[in-house]
């Protein structure tokens, strides 16, 4: 999640939002559009109907575990 749009409020270059607790991303970080979110018992998947981008909780966990350069 390194795009120009905030995944929580959907605005460009927001910079103000902190990730809410217990939430999957709500907006596409590539275009800001509201995501279609599927929440399942141990994870989530989001899909942007404009960009076609799919992201998952497994990827998000991995990104936290293995930060860039680490």
């Amino acid at each position, binding site marked *: 999640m390194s795009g120009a749009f905030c995944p929580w409020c959907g605005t460009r270059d927001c910079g103000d939002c902190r990730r809410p*607790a217990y939430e999957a991303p709500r907006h596409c970080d590539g275009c800001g559009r*509201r995501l279609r979110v599927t929440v399942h018992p141990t994870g989530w998947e989001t899909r942007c109907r404009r960009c076609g981008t799919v992201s998952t909780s497994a990827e998000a966990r991995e990104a936290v575990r293995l930060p860039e350069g680490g």
Partner: protein
Amino acid sequence: MTAAATTRPTGEARSRLRAAEVALIDERRLLEADELRALAALDDEQVPALTALAHAVRLEWCGPTVEIEGILSVKTGGCPEDCHFCSQSARFSETLPAAPFLDVDEVLAAARETADTGASEFCMVLAIRGPDERTLQRLISLVPLIEAETGLNVAVSAGILTDDQAGRLADGGVHRYNHNLETARSFFPQIATTHTWDERYETCLLVRRHGMELCCGALLGMGETVEHRVELLGQLQSLDPTEVPLNFLNPRPGTPLQIRRPLRPLEALRWIALFRLALPGVILRYAGGREITLREFQAMGMTAGINALIVGNYLTTLGRSPDEDLRMLDDLQMPIGALSGVI
């Protein structure tokens, strides 16, 4: 404050708690509205005593076992109803986009995830007013597949039912049907206007009439008063559900209730205890909003009357990890298993 001023309420509190203990443990009768009102009015300092009584009542009526359930939104968003707490209503701005009914493979994968947590129950939930024929057939076709794949009991939450639909779900093997009253009849018009509380109540009666276990829950923190909550408890007593999932409002962006604040943890604990004292034999399940409401008080709810959990994520929001809940139960030495109503 004088010594007399601090002693007198404590004495009153003791007598109210003692009277409830006699009613629930010695006489094994349900508490009436006035008795619940008296307990609801106890000072905050008395909440630990209230929760201790609720825990004793839970053990006396239900035993130590805790039931675990996983839930899945199989059809998300686009709901025509206007429940003011819900992010799945199509009537509010900024709520969730509609998504189609999940594929069979997705539902089975979620059921397997649920089974892996040690759960005994899996509930498919749909954001709809009530099922159309195609939806009903899909649900009925999924029940045996989930049972065969996982061995879980299958529950369904698909809104308002007709008599025929309730019968077909029961015949199709649905173990438990969820339909929440959410709040008291007198407060309900402030929460939803596209259907009535009475329609919800009627569906609950149909569920019982057709032999499914009734799961009928509440959502606290929508602005209802103590009197509304006591009213709701009486209405739940009259329905005699097998399970009551207890939700706490998680104010969702874009909904009319987005401006409300979550309940204070101590108030949530007080009402967990009161739900147990009003409904001593019910499966009282921790449900949505517990993480943001109770924070570090999660384990205290388990010793305040709760005897069931939704583990993992909720319909559209995330929960804490199942591992955390399983560790909590292990620490509390509460065994996991399937429960059924004992009232």
